[in-house]
């Protein structure tokens, strides 16, 4: 579904990703793991077209999406949950969703589906998003991404800084999205979350994928996680 083939990405003269490849498939959760500064966020931004890809290609459902204008990428059906949520803080909940919806032909249906997943947001539609609790803000970033009616979701540390009950709620939402047949790439620091949801795992070190394994072998041998991440 998504194929990242040998991409190089740099911030100015500083190379960050080198010859990085990965794939995401329908109905499957790929966990992208690595230490701070390994290049996880950079990988997601490169897929979203927010950073120029200087070598290699990204294709999605047969279309090349590397080096197309960034605003075209989500219209292919890719929803992005950026690290740190990146809500439009001064906009209301409804307006944040409307930003996600503005490329869609039937916005009402898409929005209803997104809100059905997070009913707590329904009563807060006219509240400024920066006044929501941390957990509600996270729900809103996921709901906003669902408003592009995506086939693929990129989640960059969605549970960072959340209380345990919210972490579970977000994990349940991610599992529901997998059941709905979405392809998911998840960056997650918490090992228990990774072990609970991963179908496949890719380890990234200094901008390169150093190992890919499936979730079951990781669950059979969790020490691999510790060895790779040094935690």
């Amino acid at each position, binding site marked *: 579904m998504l194929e990242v083939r040998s991409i190089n990405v740099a911030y100015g003269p500083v190379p960050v990703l080198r010859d990085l490849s990965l794939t995401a498939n329908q109905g499957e959760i790929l966990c992208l793991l690595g230490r701070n500064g390994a290049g996880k966020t950079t990988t997601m931004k490169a897929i*979203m077209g*927010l950073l120029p890809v200087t070598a290699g290609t990204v294709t999605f459902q047969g279309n090349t999406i590397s080096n197309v204008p960034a605003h075209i990428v*989500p219209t292919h059906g890719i929803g*992005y949950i*950026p690290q740190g949520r990146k809500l439009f803080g001064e906009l209301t909940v409804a*307006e944040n969703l409307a*930003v996600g919806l*503005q490329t869609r032909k039937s916005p009402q249906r898409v929005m209803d589906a997104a809100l059905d997943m997070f009913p707590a947001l329904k009563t807060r539609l006219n509240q400024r998003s920066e006044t929501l609790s941390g957990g509600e803000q996270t729900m809103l970033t996921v709901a906003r991404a669902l408003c*592009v009616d995506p086939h693929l979701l990129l989640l960059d540390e969605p549970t960072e800084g959340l209380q345990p009950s919210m972490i579970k709620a977000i994990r349940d939402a991610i599992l529901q999205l997998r059941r709905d047949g979405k392809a998911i790439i998840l960056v997650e620091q918490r090992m228990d979350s990774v072990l609970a949801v991963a179908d496949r795992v890719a380890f990234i070190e200094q901008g390169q994928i150093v190992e890919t394994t499936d979730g079951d072998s990781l669950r059979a041998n969790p020490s691999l996680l510790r060895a790779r991440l040094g935690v």
Partner: protein
Amino acid sequence: MGYVWQLWADGPTILIALFEGALLAAVLALMAAGLSLVFGVMRVVNVAHGEFYMLGAVAAWFIASQIGGSPAVSFVAALIVAPLLVGALAAMIDITVIKKVNYDPERTIVATIGLLYIIQQGTLMGFGAVPRAVEPPFDHRIAIPWWEKVDGVWEMYWPWGLSISTYKVFVIVAAIVIISALRYAMTHSKAGLIMRATQLDSETAQAFGIPVGRVYAGVFGVGCGLAALAGVLILPIQQAHYLMGGEALLSSFIVVIIGGLGSFGGTIIAAIIIGMTDSILTIFFSPIIAKIVATLLVALVLVFKPTGLFGTKRQ
């Protein structure tokens, strides 16, 4: 008590000063709203803003003189066409110049200083140095009455020269309508939502399908179009001249600094404060005093509240 009577006796002059102040505030608010919109969304300080005001006036003169005939018809045509033309030109300038320096704050200042001189000198070459006047589409004078206590009885009279021009009333009303419409569009339309999202976080906006490049071109066009509109509205009162942008730029900078760059409501309130003080001080003292006070106000704001009276700190 003596002061009160003196003030009452000055009433007609104060009324005229307030009215002229409202006119100045209207024009300043349009100009400064454009400057503030461009800065708010794009973080671009448009040093050439005054030149788009001048281009609006010059284009309006050209259009009106080409059409000829009744001032009502030719002026209304100019009022609609000139801001659209100038806005389209500005959008093109955004794509060909400002985008090319990546909207980098320092480089855009240098680039727009260059634009200022190119537009100004280009206008001098094409249009000449002679100021050009355009007749107002309509201009009646409405006389205003006043009262005086004569032997313990209030008597109404019509003070000599106490009248207001209907065209100036039209300019004030037009500015109020345009600014209210702009404000409403920013908060209630899809285009406004897209602009606000871009203003808050352009990268995330792109990740949700907003064509930020086109939004910037549109915002620059609308912002400069507002300056042009102010230039067209002032044309029947002030004449078009290739150097008229300088003072307009200075005044709009004063307004946005006092109001808070990027704060729409603050800009409008600051335009009213500056328009009124300028007019009252000019009429009762001198234009020099008015300019000194405005400059002092800016200095005080910069010292005690650098984000402007209504500006908020950005992260």
